[in-house]
């Protein structure tokens, strides 16, 4: 019996590259908003990090004759009261906001997860003590807590990071505790106990890997809040010091000009809005991917 060797394509097989592309296409189709959000966030990050490469202007160089120019080719976003190119300042202005947001969410996720996991796993008095502490933190409105902390520590990016971190920790701690409580009842954890695994081993090998997906989803949701918080602190004058560009500060400085030179507060405001939306879309997509209960909806 003669055998005919069929090429993979002839047999209806799809080349690996095409298969990969189809997988991506399906992913993009299913999570279009998340993809757009993720790409936009990446774009914003890239623009902020590589701002000097994109802009021919100095973000703090004053040029009074060029002040309050409406958007035009030389100045796509126009210029501000002191003649500085707004596009340049928007590009640079993302740096403090994104740095504050990413670092504070990372720090809050680490600290909150550690607190929540310990409370959930150990239970008893440790749980009581840690959760009452979290209750105290939750009793302050998050923005107010952040403002209080910056007022006490002083302005600047490092202090803003501390402030935003503090205001986000309770959310992570609550979530991690709830997850840890339910995981400790799972059979694989009980079995680990039975075979003599120590507490740290169980936390490290069983709890944390299972906590991670929902914590990541929570972190993206919190990132949007952190961007808004960081911008709010700058808006209130508690972030970076002028003339360093910062989106919140630029909106604050431009609000007087809303009737006369709308572009001055508009573009940094738009940057904040779009970034928050992008993070939200990305968070939604991640939740859909990582939450098994939503995966097939």
């Amino acid at each position, binding site marked *: 019996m003669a055998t005919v060797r069929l090429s993979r394509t002839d047999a209806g097989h799809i080349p690996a590259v095409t298969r990969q592309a189809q997988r991506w296409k399906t992913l993009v189709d299913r999570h279009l908003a998340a993809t757009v959000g993720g790409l936009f966030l990446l774009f914003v990050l890239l623009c902020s990090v590589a701002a000097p490469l994109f802009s021919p202007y100095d973000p703090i160089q*004053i040029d009074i004759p060029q002040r309050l120019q409406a958007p035009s080719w030389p100045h796509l976003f126009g210029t501000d009261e002191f003649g500085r190119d707004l596009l340049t300042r928007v590009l640079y202005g993302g740096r403090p906001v994104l740095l504050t947001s990413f670092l504070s969410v990372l720090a809050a996720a680490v600290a909150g997860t550690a607190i929540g996991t310990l409370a959930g796993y150990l239970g008893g008095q440790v749980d009581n003590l840690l959760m009452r502490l979290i209750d105290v933190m939750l009793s302050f409105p998050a923005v107010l807590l952040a403002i209080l902390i910056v007022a006490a520590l002083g302005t600047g990016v490092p202090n803003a990071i501390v402030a935003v971190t503090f205001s986000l920790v309770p959310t992570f701690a609550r979530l991690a505790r709830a997850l840890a409580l339910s995981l400790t009842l799972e059979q694989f954890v009980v079995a680990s106990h039975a075979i003599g695994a120590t507490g740290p081993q169980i936390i490290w090998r069983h709890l944390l890997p299972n906590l991670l997906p929902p914590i990541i989803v929570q972190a993206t949701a919190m990132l949007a809040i952190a961007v808004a918080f960081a911008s709010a602190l700058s808006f209130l004058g508690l972030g970076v010091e002028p003339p360093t560009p910062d989106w919140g500060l630029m909106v604050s400085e431009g609000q007087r000009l809303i009737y006369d030179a*709308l572009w001055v507060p508009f573009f940094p405001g738009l940057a904040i*809005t779009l970034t928050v939306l992008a993070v939200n879309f990305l968070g939604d997509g991640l939740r859909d991917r990582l939450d098994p209960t939503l995966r097939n909806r």
Partner: protein
Amino acid sequence: MSTQRDHEKYLKAVQEALLTRRRFLQGTAGFAGLMAMAQLTAGCAAPAAAPAAVPAAGEAATPQNGGRLVFAAEAIGESLEPGLWNGFGIINIVDNIAGYLTRPNSNGNWTDPAEGFLAESWTLSEDGKTYTFSIRPGMSFHDGTPVDANAVVRSLTRQTNPDDPSYVEGLYMHTAFTTGRKNITAADEMTVVVELEAPDATYLYRLFHPSAVIISTKALDELQQGIATNLVSAGPFKLEKFTPGAEAQLVAFEQYYLGRPHLDEIVIRGYPDEGAMLSAIEAGEVNFAPYPPSSAIPRLQQDASKKVVAGEPVVDLFLACCMLNGPTDNKDVRKAINYAVNRENLIEAVLYGLGEEPATLVGPTELGFDPSGKEISRQDLAKAQEHIAASGLATPIPLTFTYESNRFWPQMAELIKGDLEAVGFAVTLDAQDAGSYWGKIFGGQAQLSMNQRSLWIPDPDDKVALLQSGGSGAQFETGIVTALPEYSAKMDELLAAGKSEQDPEKRVAIYQEIQAMILEELPYIMLAYYTKPTVMATNVEGLLPGAAATERIFLEKVWLS
């Protein structure tokens, strides 16, 4: 079975129809984008063409009675106690309630001689030290009690008398009218005698300082410290309602001695946020705004429904160098700061042209103004660098720059910071709310600070008195009393001589010497003479422009056409 299927179908339909978070976000993004683009397109459009010309000033219209003026103050403080500083908004309320012994000249020229108010007339002794005031007969306070000599004496002494039931700790504004006063007595029911330690050419002006309000004796006895929310005086308007921190409602006083004022009612409302104030002006919620954001002035000047009155350049904007602290205790540092600052940029970019390049504290419309000071109060980067080198300090020189976080101060600070860093300073901006700012200044804790001085009393002494050794300016804001005792003593002598000299020509020479001393040590570094604008609806008439140039805004002659 079919029921089950229908139910599932129904549920699916409902789920699809529900507003999910994602749909909400997407919808919001789209809507916000559309709205923003629409707004931006409108905002970037070419400015509207100039409106039809404002009707030419022709024959004077007859003032009409009636109407309500809504006055946008920059903020409203918590207390009407005239002996305390509670911000310009409170001063605006007090000035329209108050009866003073004297008043600014009714011709509207702020620096013209004072006129009588509660005092109908006065005489001055030959040695120039004793004033005898005759109280205007038939006047009454807003509570109906008569104005007499006892009320005047009580009002002008209570702020220094801890036994007075209205006394509160911390009253200090009275120095405006008590400095140099030896004695004050009621010679009879309608005569007040004031003895001064030395002749004082400014005394009649100082009697209409906002702290020199004459208050009803009955109110002082009954309300005591409660006058802080219910000030009863004899001015053209009486206080109807005061909401601390928010607004005051004033109504016409029918028994006012010059006849009822034209307006029925004035609402003085605080707008600490410039954006909110601007929105209120745009929306027509207020028809009188003497503290508008400078950035809006060019456009508001083109608005047919509003008019803009720019006053004379009597508001000094300056930097104060505190010599109690480094590095501003170093004379070369002060000189470097002076030569580093680009005043043209400040006037152009922050004041939107509403200012003039400065000389010293004495302004161009004031007695003894010395324009030669403009040569020193000007940017000269080479000289700034020379003084930095001569200071002996390692660069960058760390410098904390303190200012109030309201009005145009933050923009000023940002530009000045750039100028200073360009010549070798490392500036830390220290924006404070008004209360914290003054706490820091009066605590002698600042290095470089920024503030203003208006000509509340129309005499050059009002500004240079900042350097009088008994005042907080000399003690804390600049610290010259401690840092430069001989200089301070000499300044005191000149200030006293300037006040007591009656011959205007000799006074000019004294004030020019004072200005030269200021430029030599630079405790104050001038930034600009600000020509403060006032925005009002086109139907607001009768405002005295001289008074409007300062923060002293008297509305008794204002009417709505």
